[in-house]
């Protein structure tokens, strides 16, 4: 136990501060940066639209499809912005209004009202759903997946490439202990970076909500949601980490299992119940407090990749995930016992 900690301490520094870790931070902090940017733009919009003329929503809502642009202009008055362009045979026109709460675009094709697009200047409800989407599609599927791929492959395969793995093997520690120690180091690094990134984005998201929304949320769900997201991120690192650690131990070219895993996690939603239980993502998504929306305009292939697995309850998800992780780690320690130093490749 003590030894595991000593190994982890020595290894953590490498995981956190090497130049190679830079892109991991980039992945983790990218959404946080986006939400901060969003905070700035909401702030700006609020001030911008406060000065704009508001057209009563009743008027804008009453315009039926097919209304001509002239009639619309007559009914609603001068727009905030008027844009016209041509695409193929079709003459497009977009009139932009503000109803005091929503931004509204009336879109005309060849002079007839085709659609009315309505975007709230800012909506707490929508934002939390977008955060859920970002967390599930970006963090869980991409950032944590590829981040853990980098961090955990570096633990053994990376040192093999660097020709420095034998220093660990020359220490009086059981190979099992070594695997666990390195795993802990990777896990701590990944969990701090990605858990921190997710929480930071969450905080950035809350930073620009109106005070009324924020207060209710803070009093009800905020803490629980934040904790669940953190837990899902950490468990994601634990699950993916164990798999990539094992892959780095066993295989010369771990990209192939990574690829297989990426595809496996993608098509998993279509597989029979039993097989779904073997997916890390399946459990993680069950832990997320807010279900993520599916983007209906995504191309068919993307939709296939994004379709969520049927959720398991949190109380089966937790032990399920831990069981998968433990099993994979056990196999990894078995492989480590037989691992030989061979710096021939590459």
């Amino acid at each position: 136990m003590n030894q595991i900690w000593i190994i982890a301490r020595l290894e953590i520094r490498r995981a956190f501060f090497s130049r190679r870790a830079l892109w991991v931070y980039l992945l983790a902090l990218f959404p946080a940066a986006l939400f901060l940017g969003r905070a700035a733009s909401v702030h700006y919009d609020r001030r911008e639209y406060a000065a704009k003329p508001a057209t009563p929503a009743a008027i804008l809502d009453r315009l039926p499809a097919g209304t001509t642009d002239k009639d619309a202009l007559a009914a609603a008055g001068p727009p905030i912005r008027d844009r016209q362009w041509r695409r193929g045979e079709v003459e497009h026109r977009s009139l932009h209004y503000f109803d005091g709460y929503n931004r509204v675009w009336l879109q005309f094709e060849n002079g007839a009202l085709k659609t009315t697009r309505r975007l709230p200047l800012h909506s707490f409800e929508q934002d939390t759903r977008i955060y859920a989407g970002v967390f599930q599609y970006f963090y869980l599927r991409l950032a944590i997946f590829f981040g853990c791929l980098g961090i955990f492959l570096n633990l053994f395969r990376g040192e093999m490439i660097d020709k420095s793995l034998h220093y660990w093997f020359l220490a009086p520690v059981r190979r099992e202990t070594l695997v666990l120690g390195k795993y802990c180091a990777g896990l701590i690094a990944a969990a701090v970076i990605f858990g921190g990134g997710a929480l930071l984005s969450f905080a950035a998201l809350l930073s620009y909500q109106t005070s009324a929304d924020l207060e209710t949320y803070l009093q009800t769900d905020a803490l629980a949601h934040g904790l669940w997201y953190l837990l899902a991120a950490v468990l994601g690192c634990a699950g993916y980490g164990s798999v990539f650690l094992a892959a780095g131990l066993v295989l010369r070219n771990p990209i192939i299992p990574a690829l297989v895993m990426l595809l496996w996690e993608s098509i998993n939603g279509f597989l029979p119940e039993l097989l779904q239980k073997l997916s890390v993502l399946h459990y993680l998504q069950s832990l997320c407090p807010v279900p993520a929306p599916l983007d209906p305009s995504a191309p068919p292939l993307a939709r296939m990749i994004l379709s969520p697995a049927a959720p398991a309850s949190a109380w089966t998800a937790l032990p399920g995930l831990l069981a998968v992780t433990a099993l994979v780690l056990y196999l990894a320690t078995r492989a480590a016992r037989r691992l030989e130093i061979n710096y021939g490749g590459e």
Partner: protein
Amino acid sequence: MAVFKRGYERYTGPRTGALARFLVVPRFAWPKLLGERFVVVLLIVSLFWPLLCAGFVYLSNHASLLPGLAEAGDAVQKLLRIDGAFFATFMNVQSTFAIILAAIAGPGLIAPDLANNALPLYFARPLSLASYIGARLLVLFGLLATVTLLPGLFVFGMQASLGGSAWLAAHWTLGQGMLLGFLLYILLVSLVALTLSAYVKWRVVAGALVLGFFFVLGGAAQIINQVFRVEWGSLLSPSYILYTIWCALLGVETPADAPDAGECLAALVVLLAALLAILLRKLRPVEVVS
């Protein structure tokens, strides 16, 4: 006679032409790649979808054979039509295989040369930097064309022969669009594979990076769109850029407020230029004495 007494004498015998020398690189790289088990498996797996599409083409041209289909509704008829949308879907799915193949086969081409300092060996021979890159690109081109271009032309040719000259006369732009679209795609994917592997120098990492490049940028584009409620974020996604260009080439409608083909083309050019600049920077043949 002792070696040092002979003095240095330049080789004056016959030499192969520049083209033949250029082809030496792919000539050795292809058999090596085809010797890798996973590459072969992937090549075979990637044939399923074109075969499925070919079956569909056959079906759509023999719709009358199926009882009940002839009098089926308009929707079914429309579904069965072979048009731009059909080819766009075909290309979209098939292109995924190209990415995977490039992630597996691509890094093995340049990364080992850099990691083992083999570049001077290449440049000590009559091979310029441009032809080195060109030759490496050609290796990937050959590989990727077998999973994209060849099956695509096969499906198109099958439809052309089944649909007769009338169909061909009306739809030859589809074939041309597919050819052009796939060429652009292959260029992008192989350049990404070469650049990233020259950048990190490790095969394994480069493979992961190629995958990450397409998937993570795609995801990043999505979340920019979502968070800011905009559409221009898609310009960050290489897959999306190319999909839009294909749709324009094939005459398929894309959502009106999304970035259009012109913008996508501009983004593509910027992306290609950036990749090429990095590649040239990393491949600087220090050992060449001018």
